[in-house]
């Protein structure tokens, strides 16, 4: 079986963000970067499938500047066999359809049986790319999976629904699956696997011809929201903050009556 896992490198969401010079995205300097959390579940599920089936080749694909190779190495250390890096210093300016077109251009002649990806990225969060890849490749797609099994050429998944219920869905391969948090527990790469990963193939490709694709949308501005409401911020020494909080709870709620 041939599996493709599409991942994205994103900043750690605990970072202190600043707006960049053109006011249209966050400033990419001085941030800690990591694998998009939703994609971690995708990598883990692909690796587990390989452990189950055996004869499975896992390709991890990532689009972005050179720095994304660090994140790709983690995917390789988790168990992917090879990496494909589409070198694109402008990846953060691309629209979802452009990213999907790059992935589809790579995948189109490779006959992947399953394409796993996260259901959205933690930074942009458009939740479009995975489904768009499927549409461009003419493949079925199932989103938001929180459980996965594979048997006899069919994937059986559970889709997570609002309210916590789950829908039981299946499809024959080939199929695109987008992963929701909690699908599995992503493994920490062991040191031996981190060392092995250094020897795995990591190919760099150029951005394909995207003429005729995109130019659908434009960011007008990216900014910090106004803090609404009369929130009181307490800072300083712990005992003083605790006293102030207790005072506020007595004053504003009936909870400490």
């Amino acid at each position, binding site marked *: 079986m041939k599996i493709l896992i599409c991942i994205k490198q994103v900043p750690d*969401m*605990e970072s*202190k*963000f600043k707006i960049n010079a053109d006011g249209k995205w*966050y400033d990419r300097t001085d941030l800690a970067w990591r694998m998009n959390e939703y994609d971690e579940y995708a990598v883990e599920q692909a690796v587990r499938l390989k452990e189950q089936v055996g004869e499975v080749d896992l390709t991890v694909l990532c689009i972005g500047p050179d720095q994304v190779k660090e994140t790709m190495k983690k995917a390789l250390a988790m168990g992917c066999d090879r990496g494909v890096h589409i070198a694109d210093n402008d990846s953060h300016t691309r*629209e*979802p*359809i452009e990213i*999907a077109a790059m992935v589809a251009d790579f995948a189109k002649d490779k006959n992947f049986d399953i394409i796993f990806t996260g259901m*959205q990225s933690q*930074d*942009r*969060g*458009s*939740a*479009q790319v995975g*489904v*768009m890849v499927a*549409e461009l490749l003419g493949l*079925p*797609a*199932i*989103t*938001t999976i929180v459980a996965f099994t594979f048997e006899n050429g069919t994937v059986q998944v559970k*889709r*997570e629904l*609002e*309210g916590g*219920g*789950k*829908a*039981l*869905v299946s499809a024959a391969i080939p199929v695109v699956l987008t992963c929701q*948090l*909690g699908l599995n527990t992503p493994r920490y790469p062991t040191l031996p696997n981190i060392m092995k990963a250094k020897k795995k193939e990591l190919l760099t490709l150029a951005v394909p011809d995207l003429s005729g694709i995109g*130019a*659908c*949308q*434009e*960011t*007008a501005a*990216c*900014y*910090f*929201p106004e*803090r609404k*409401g*009369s*929130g009181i*911020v*307490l800072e300083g020494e712990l005992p003083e*903050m*605790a006293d102030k*909080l*207790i005072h506020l*709870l007595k004053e504003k*709620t*009936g*909870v*400490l009556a």
Partner: protein
Amino acid sequence: MKTLLVAEFREGKLRVKYSQLIAFAKGLPTEASMFLVGSPNDLPQFDGTLYLADVGKYGEYNPSVHKQLLLDVIAKEQPDLIVFHHSSYGWDLAPRIAVALKAAQISEVVAIEDGVPVVPVCNAKLRRKITSKTAQTILTLQAGAFGMDEDPVGAPTVVPVDTEARGKVECHGYEAAKIEGVDLTKSEVIVSAGRGVGNPENIAIVQALAKALGGEYGGSRPVVDAGWVDHDRQVGTTGRTVTPKLYVACGISGAIQHLAGMKKSEFIVAINTDKDAPIGEVADVFVVADLKQFLPVLTEKLKAL
């Protein structure tokens, strides 16, 4: 300007949140019609055209078939805007329409400002305004961002729609959400643990505070996924929605899905080392502190009262 609203039918019934789509459309200079794969016995209250496909025939989740039904309606109606909920149904279907129409899709709209959609990015720490450059635009609306003060009224003019398209995805029914154990919706005080607790042992610190306040403890999605807190204590879109007198969010950043589950609490206290955490947008009091240090101090003082 014409708008087509996409309503949802799931687990045997029309999802009443369609009123949010109507509320959104009311805010625009537009003529709205609606599309639904649903049942003629469970119709939305809406004075307009409803393009209705029979859910008995086409299924509740059948992406490529729903896509074709919707594309046929779009070809007929020629809407400028096609509006979905940002939901497990909407984010699954909308991008398929975007690809077919080569149209811009703007996801999880929280507001329209000067005619431009606003969406959250980076765990809602930031906002982005996005303009569409295509003749038709697809929007998905964040749950609860648009709402009506009254229940919707009206009776739609139903236009049935059908298709020969067949799908490759099969549905085998549903697994209900487990609602055993504690019912947080009945608690007046809830103290919730988020990722900031760091490890399962620290849940005890959160439980101790809950006890000192006479309430229950809950958790955000990451701690439930990690197995540190049971699912019946999860607060958020895929857990419980709670409205207690007091909600204390400990080490919870305030992801949209969590906020949706608790932002209507009467009084909200957030304890977090990250001053920029989005939970600050709903907190009445924000304590900038490490919960592992602050909670024990607070708990001791409460016990001494």
